[in-house]
């Protein structure tokens, strides 16, 4: 089954490959967060304030390096659901909680997510397509 999302509307700088994920809070509730699908990110990155809002438990502090420079992060486990047309997928991914209180979106990185879908960025059509990888047992 393929899930297709249209880019967020608005001016050019507002449009991008966001998808709605249902993030699980510590209390077991769900909050729909628009996450930016980032094929360049190894891991899912959660802004500190969003991690606090979700009640994520944070572990060891480590240092990361990216094009924007180095940043201090803490390791965490992040649970979320992705709803398709009729189907629902559950994920538990190792994530990094960025410690600076800057304004950035939740980044959905490759580890633990991209291996479950064939992901196509149709940037010219402003759409992102996610097709579930069929696994046989």
């Amino acid at each position, binding site marked *: 089954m393929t899930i297709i999302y249209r*880019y967020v*509307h608005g001016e050019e700088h507002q449009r*991008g490959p966001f998808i709605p994920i249902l993030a699980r809070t510590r209390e077991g509730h769900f909050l729909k967060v628009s996450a930016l699908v980032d094929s360049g990110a190894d891991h899912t990155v959660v802004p500190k304030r969003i991690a606090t809002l979700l009640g994520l438990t944070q572990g060891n502090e480590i240092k990361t390096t*990216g094009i924007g420079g180095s940043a201090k992060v803490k390791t965490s486990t992040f649970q979320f659901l992705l709803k398709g047309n009729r189907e629902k997928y559950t994920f538990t991914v190792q994530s990094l909680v960025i410690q600076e209180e800057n*304004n950035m979106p939740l980044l959905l990185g490759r580890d633990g997510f991209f291996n479950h879908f064939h992901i196509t960025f149709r940037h010219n059509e402003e759409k992102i397509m996610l097709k579930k990888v069929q696994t046989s047992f």
Partner: protein
Amino acid sequence: MVKDVIPRNLDLSPYEGEWVVICDKEIIAHNKNPLKLEKTINNCKTIPTLFLVPEKNTVWLF
């Protein structure tokens, strides 16, 4: 079927650089600090959507 992440009738332009809470297809709160939206989020009867509206002249480099 193509899905929209954010209802297309919503005008996001007044909220650039802010987190917005969308409940029942309406923006019900906005703030630069999402922690200040917690009460509003909890008052939404359906599952609310949280979205950071990208800001003009700001480039995200990750």
